[in-house]
């Protein structure tokens, strides 16, 4: 069970980590100082969540097979290669323009709030605890990204078409969030995890309502991109890891 739990928690940790890494790239480059500070705050929350989930993942892995050395948050962040990362593809989409950043955040936040709310009922106390702390942050992120979807969607002609295009770019990565596989099935049936497909209707309702108010149309489900959960990532991902992991790889076994 611990091995399942390790893999399951790793997904949550990787989602938060990769999104945090992306938002960190925006610090100092925001459209206005106040929003620079706001996006950095969201990024900091994501890094904080990543640390909590990844530390727990390391302990769960160690509990499953104690012959393995314990991997802490940094070992899991800096010393895994791309196929071992199991974040959803949505969070590794590039920052793009502000519309892309907001679209990615908005679609993800809607999922994160629902998933974290469900996880507060996990039979595993540590998972439930991290979820309870994180869900407060996620609700704030959702409020922030939703308001920006409204402003951009219902702002100027230019912002409307840019926001619509951004949504279209991110939309193929939505379905993966709700994919059921053997791991999520066992996690849900054993009571410590969540069946993601059960979150879909609430996600649709939440997203549809904001899109409608923002005068944006919901993109078609023409294509779905998948593979993040099983370690098959987008092209940009390797570059992101190369950058993120450089110091730990170039100078192994150092304290920083």
């Amino acid at each position, binding site marked *: 069970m611990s091995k399942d739990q390790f893999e399951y928690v790793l997904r949550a940790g990787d989602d938060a*980590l990769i999104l*945090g*890494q992306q938002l*960190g*790239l925006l*610090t*100092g*480059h*925001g*459209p*206005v*100082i*106040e*929003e*620079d*500070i706001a996006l*950095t*705050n969201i*990024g*900091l929350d994501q*890094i*904080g969540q*990543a*640390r909590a989930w*990844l530390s727990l993942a390391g302990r769960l892995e160690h509990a499953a097979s104690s012959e393995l050395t314990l991997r802490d*948050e*940094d070992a899991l*962040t*800096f010393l895994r290669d791309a196929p071992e990362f199991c974040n959803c593809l949505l969070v590794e989409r590039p920052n793009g*323009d*502000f519309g892309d950043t907001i679209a990615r955040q908005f679609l993800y936040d809607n999922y994160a709030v629902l998933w974290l709310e469900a996880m507060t009922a996990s039979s595993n106390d540590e998972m439930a605890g991290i979820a309870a702390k994180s869900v407060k942050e996620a609700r704030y992120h959702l409020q922030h990204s939703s308001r920006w979807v*409204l*402003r*951009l969607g*219902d*702002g*100027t002609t*230019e*912002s409307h078409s*840019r926001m619509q295009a951004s949504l279209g770019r991110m939309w193929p990565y939505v379905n993966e969030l709700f994919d059921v596989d053997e791991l999520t099935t066992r996690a849900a049936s054993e009571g410590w995890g969540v069946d993601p497909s059960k979150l879909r209707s609430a996600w649709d309702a939440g997203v549809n309502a904001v899109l409608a108010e923002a005068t944006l149309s919901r993109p078609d489900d023409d294509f779905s991109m998948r593979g993040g959960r099983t370690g098959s990532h987008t092209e940009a991902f390797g570059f992101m890891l190369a*950058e*993120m992991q*450089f*110091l*730990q790889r170039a*100078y192994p076994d*150092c*304290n*920083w």
Partner: protein
Amino acid sequence: MNSTLFDAYVADEKKIEPKDWMPDAYRKTLVRQISQHAHSEVVGMLPEANWISRAPSLKRKAILMAKVQDEAGHGLYLYSAAETLGVERDDLYLDLLEGKAKYSSIFNYPTQNWADIGAIGWLVDGAAIMNQVPLCKCSYGPYARAMVRVCKEESFHQRQGFQIMLVMTEGSAEQKAMAQDAMNRWWWPALMMFGPPDGDSPNSAQSMKWNIKRFSNDELRQKFVDMTVPQAELIGLTVPDADLKWNEQTGHYDFGEIDWSEFKRVIKGGGPCNVERLAACNKAWNDGAWVRQAATAYAEKKSSNATR
């Protein structure tokens, strides 16, 4: 109120508030100084933000993000203080973007290795704090209040920087070399942060009279050297100055000649990163134009709906 009364008033440690009468020159001096200070905070985000994506641990990544975010906050507090003098932030910022406004020349140097993040926190923020603490008692209320907030937040910056250096000097040979390399590159620019020597600082005397400035450039620089040299010794770093030595008689360190021609060159645009820094600021601003316009348009729609 007139200039003579005003001078006596501020000399008596009294505070000036936004709507009070003040000489034009006082207002101009403040707008120039506060906006340059704000620009420095904002441009100063860039060299450090370079390393957020490459921070060597998640803890360091979080600390660095929070630190760079603070600089944005400081820029904002300062622009707000400047705005109380009847100027608009966007206008000040456009002066920066067009290369018409100055900012601290130190941020035109590149961050080449991770120890630079340590050196910036320890030396650059250390020097900044030394400059800023006296400003908490500046005669202009809004500036003084902004500086109180800035200084309160800044103290963690210097500590986290010193700690990065400390850990690296206790680490591998490569880490020590990185730390020394960073020390070598940041030491002299940090000393330049206090501004030209007293004999060559035309605005200083008036600013001291108005209680905007409380210590001379050279006094603060000496204080910084005296404080920092023992810290460098403690962590085994060599200060890159062959002339540096303790002077028993004065009770201060003597130190070598600063290359003021480099200082002037960097201020005029000839530093290693002047072009990149301004380009990054311009790109963020231009890329954000449609976002700012959208928010304005949306707010107008909502308020006209509400009043309809």
